[in-house]
């Protein structure tokens, strides 16, 4: 099983090169080291795949896109530093990033005042594009992923309407805003539509033993168990759940992508999760998978990689629009044009065609994926 992250520091995306007249500099920021590195690396790989492709095909308006790639370890402080460096020292004109919501929000507070166009592949927290305190939308910030409440609600409705669930349990990582966000939305929606949430169990980062919580859940015998975490934990949770006698159906969020590598087919059988991406579903996806494998030692892309790719697609599409206006990369007008173009985008990525709502969140249906025989199979759009 080849699963190595492909490293491409150095080479073309080495930072610090003086901007050549004919290039457009964009930033790529995310956690490529540290605890959440696997997500960051996937997003970066996806984004770089598309941009390299564009460059190979002659670039945008004949100009090469130059990537300035930095690591933020998933930490807000680092993210802000790296972003500021991209702006001040490297002179980027747009940003793809960051990967985790917390780091992205920190960057947004820097990027919004200077009107830097940014698009995140995976920052799902509602607060990334919207300041609820002042009820303002960060007009420069876009994302290609679902927001947390959306997925939580979707899965609650799915449980009620498709699976006919009456009782539900949740198990989530308490310190993780993503998991908490999904869980909160799920619980809220479930109560509204008449599913009773019989168990609400948390765990902390780094925990590997969930048996105690699952034993509690098993005792309540819920119809569905919503586990909106990242796939490694979810895999472990499902495995241990079956060991302690939990029999209900597992539901998850888009963090489940790749979960089949972390739990047995038998344990996962019949679980559902919502995603933005269904592997192998369309020709475009198949092409993407093939390209990705070719670029990164035969690795299979996951949803994060696909979304990274899509983020790049949407951004490059906007760059084209700005270029078409004959503006100079790096100027404020240019940035405004990029934002403007993204706002009205209709770019087609691997996972969907994009358009944004008034909160700059993508308007697209969720893909429901069912796990059968250890495979992630497209079930329906929902």
């Amino acid at each position, binding site marked *: 099983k080849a699963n190595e992250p492909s*490293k491409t*520091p*150095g080479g073309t995306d*080495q*930072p*610090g090169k003086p901007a050549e007249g004919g290039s457009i500099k964009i930033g790529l920021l995310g956690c*490529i*080291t*540290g605890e959440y590195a696997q997500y960051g690396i996937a997003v970066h790989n996806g984004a770089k795949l598309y941009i390299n492709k564009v460059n190979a095909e002659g670039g945008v308006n004949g100009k090469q896109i130059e990537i300035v*790639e*930095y*690591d933020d370890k998933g*930490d*807000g*402080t*680092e993210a*802000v*530093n*790296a972003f*500021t*460096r991209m*702006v*001040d*020292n490297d002179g980027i004109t747009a940003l793809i990033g960051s990967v985790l919501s*917390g780091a992205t*929000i*920190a960057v947004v*507070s820097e990027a919004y005042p200077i009107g830097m166009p940014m698009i995140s592949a995976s920052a799902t*927290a509602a*607060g990334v594009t919207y*300041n609820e*305190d*002042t009820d303002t939308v960060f007009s420069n910030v876009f994302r290609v992923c679902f927001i947390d409440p959306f997925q939580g609600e979707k899965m609650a409705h799915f449980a009620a309407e498709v699976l006919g669930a009456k009782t539900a349990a949740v198990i989530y990582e*308490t*310190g*993780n*805003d993503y*998991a*908490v*966000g999904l869980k909160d939305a799920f619980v809220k929606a479930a109560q509204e539509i008449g599913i009773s949430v019989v168990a609400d169990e948390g765990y*902390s*980062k780094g925990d590997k033993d969930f048996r105690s919580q699952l034993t509690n859940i098993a005792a309540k015998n819920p119809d569905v168990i919503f586990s909106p975490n990242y796939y490694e934990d979810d895999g472990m949770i499902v495995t241990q759940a079956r060991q302690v006698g939990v029999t209900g159906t597992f539901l998850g969020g888009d963090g489940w992508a790749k979960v089949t590598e972390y739990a047995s087919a038998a344990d996962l059988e019949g679980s559902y999760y919502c995603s933005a991406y269904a592997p192998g579903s369309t020709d475009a996806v198949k092409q993407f998978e093939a390209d990705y494998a070719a670029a990164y030692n035969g690795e299979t892309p996951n949803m994060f990689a696909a979304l990274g790719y899509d983020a790049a697609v949407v951004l490059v599409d906007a760059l084209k629009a700005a270029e078409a206006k004959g503006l100079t990369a790096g100027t404020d007008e240019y940035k405004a044009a990029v934002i403007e173009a993204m706002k009205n985008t209709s770019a087609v990525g691997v996972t969907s065609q994009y358009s944004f709502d008034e909160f700059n969140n993508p308007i697209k249906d969720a893909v429901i994926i069912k796990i059968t025989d250890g495979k992630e199979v497209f079930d329906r759009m929902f």
Partner: protein
Amino acid sequence: MKKNTVHIPMPIRYLINAAAIAAIYLIISALSSAGVITNYYTKILILICINIILAVSLNLVTGYLGQLPLGHAGFMAVGAYASGIFMRAVSGSMPTGLAVFLSLILAAIVAGIFGFIIGIPALRLKGDYLAIITLGFGEIIRVVLLNIDSVLGFNFTYGAASLKNIPKTTTFTLAFICVVVVCFLIHTMMKSRYGRAILSIRENEIASESCGIRTTYFKTMAFVVSAAFAGVAGSLYAGYLGILNPANFGFMKSIEILVMVVLGGMGSMIGSVVSAAVLSALPEVLRAFADYRMVAYSLLLILVMIFKPSGLMGTYDFSFTNLIGRLIGRISGKRTARKESAE
């Protein structure tokens, strides 16, 4: 009296030091308004200032008092949240300058109170037991910040969702002033009977007691002061980043601060300052190495400790005026020597 050192009288020492500090500040300001120091470097400078305050305040307990607390980030968190919640509450209804000033004071007081509450039981223990108990308190603070909202029933810290939209009021000038004030206060305290009492506890607690020093009182005092300054750093941090998440103040952050103190040399304030500056800037310098940067960082830690086990500065405390004194002494050395032989 060491030869070749001209002893500079106190008022002049103050003037020299004040001038030196003002010069540093003015140079940096000038450079940044000239655009040589960009926004990016300013950000790093602010971060360095915050880390200096953290390291210097931890050094008070680790280097001077000789204890090993592993929960310093907890105090920083308390200060950061106190200040963040305050700033969100008053933003718009109070002049910013006043609000910032009050938030710093508030952060110091709240963190100091936590230092007191935690210090009283923690200081009953010694060595590694003290380490673990402070680590425990630090983690408890983090878990409480994470989950308190569900107990209160309303949004207070916003838990995992982060406390967002804190006014970004921390400027380089503010951070620099705080560093100067904190260093000055710690320095003057250490050069007084209070500081000597703290040192004596590190050196030999039993002897210290028998010299009439109420060790429990002074230990607690050092702990509270250290916590309060960590709170100040937290407050600056809140105003720097504008968003707070309990995960930023975990055990690893405490370790990071401890590394700064030890690497700089325990009990050396200048050591803490230098190593906080170096270690804060290092990840940025190593940024170009991408994946390898954490490996480089860890190797550096190991190598410095192997080749310089007592830290970069040992227990040496740099005195700018003494240095000047020595320089003057060296220049006028011959004359002094002649005088001496005449005497």
